[in-house]
């Protein structure tokens, strides 16, 4: 039997009802998705069934996980944050500027850390051999960028608006347009891989991946804000997206950080 969107819609609704019930019974807000979110079928065999073993980072300042690998100017080239200038010609699509701050849970800027992004082209196609979507490749767009956050924790990318794309989990499954982000903090415990979405996408209710974040406010934090002050005259539309790294870090602050 073909899995349909209405099958998935029912499962998404059931997961939301279960979360609402947990909340009504006094359970804490869930800022993160659960790893066993069945409406996203790929999670079914790829999540642990045993609870994680908890490590209190306050007990040992020497934990390897309380430090993070270093990245520097050697690891990025000057045009790495401009995805429209990686080839000889101009990519097709609406140019956008995406910028925001990388913060820790105390609201402090996370400086000098690596931000990596990847995305589909404006037609919704990834430059990836396993991609089966029958939409045109753009010879002038690979959809990959990286940068280091500045002294105020800001990152900034120039790219093109990615298109939505079908992904075959169920009949008529479409991913809302998004940009994948990979982020490092000052501690390895703060590592984050996530996706940024665009305001008011009509596909949000149908997509089990964004809906895996069942808390409404938490899900909203994945959606960028249109920011006219970031729009570059005669060039690009601007989007602002701040990122807060979860996970504990060392309670002492290193010199110069």
């Amino acid at each position, binding site marked *: 039997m073909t899995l349909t969107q209405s099958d998935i819609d029912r499962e998404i609704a059931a997961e939301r009802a279960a979360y609402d019930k947990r909340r009504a019974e006094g359970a804490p807000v869930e800022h993160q998705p659960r790893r066993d979110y069945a409406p996203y079928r790929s999670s079914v065999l790829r999540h642990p069934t045993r609870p*994680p073993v908890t490590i209190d980072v306050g007990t040992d300042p020497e934990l390897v996980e309380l430090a993070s690998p270093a990245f520097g100017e050697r690891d990025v080239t000057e045009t790495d944050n401009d995805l429209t200038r990686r080839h000889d010609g101009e990519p097709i699509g609406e140019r956008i500027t995406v910028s925001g701050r990388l913060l820790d849970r105390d609201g402090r800027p996370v400086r000098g850390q690596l931000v990596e992004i990847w995305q589909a082209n404006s037609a919704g196609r990834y430059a990836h051999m396993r991609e089966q979507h029958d939409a045109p490749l753009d010879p002038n767009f690979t959809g990959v960028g990286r940068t280091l956050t500045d002294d105020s924790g800001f990152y900034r990318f120039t790219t093109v608006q990615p298109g939505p794309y079908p992904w075959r989990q169920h009949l008529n499954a479409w991913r809302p347009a998004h940009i994948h982000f990979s982020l490092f903090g000052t501690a390895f415990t703060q590592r984050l891989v996530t996706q940024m979405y665009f305001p008011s996408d009509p596909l949000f209710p149908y997509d089990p991946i964004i809906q895996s974040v069942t808390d409404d406010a938490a899900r909203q934090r994945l959606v960028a804000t249109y920011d006219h002050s970031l729009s570059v005259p005669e060039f690009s539309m601007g989007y602002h997206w701040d990122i807060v790294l979860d996970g504990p870090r060392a309670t002492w602050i290193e010199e110069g950080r």
Partner: protein
Amino acid sequence: MTKIDPSRPETVLPTPSHTVGPFYGHALPFPGGGDIAPLGHPDAVTLRGYVYDGEGAPLPDAFLELWGADPDGELPRVDGSMRRDPASGGFLGRNGVEFTGWGRVQTDADGHWSARTLRPGARGASAPYVSVCVFARGLLVHLFTRIYLPGDDAALAADPLLRRVDPARRDTLIATRERSGAYRFDIRLQGEGETVFLEFQ
């Protein structure tokens, strides 16, 4: 919603995680990602293994990040893991001399990964280990675990984490010696022999 005002702590809430998906291949892997050990270093060790799902099928689309101390137990603070070439815009790779302590390796079509790094030294109360972060399509939040190396039974017995772990599952955190300087460490995401995963608070 996504402009955060740090002067209002109640708005500083975590950005949710999402799966890495299937299409990170042009973005995250880089040449020499698993060649963490400087060339010719006497303390180089080879780590390798498979990543399996709940039915025992190997994952062809997972990747691991490895992060560890140097043989003296010091944490590297040097960049240059993914040095770039300003002329071509491509990757130069590591310089083969400095130890950054960090690497990133993909599983291949058989679900197998391998890396060469330096045998880590002990830090604090812990036995020596390499920290591992697992990412995969289908995994909505990455998973942390640790690779402890066998050999020093006293250090392993005294390790604060290993002491707390269910004895029946403890071995999922300890690599198996295959030959001198070569170790096997499989990761089972679910089910029989499920790897112990960690949460930091």
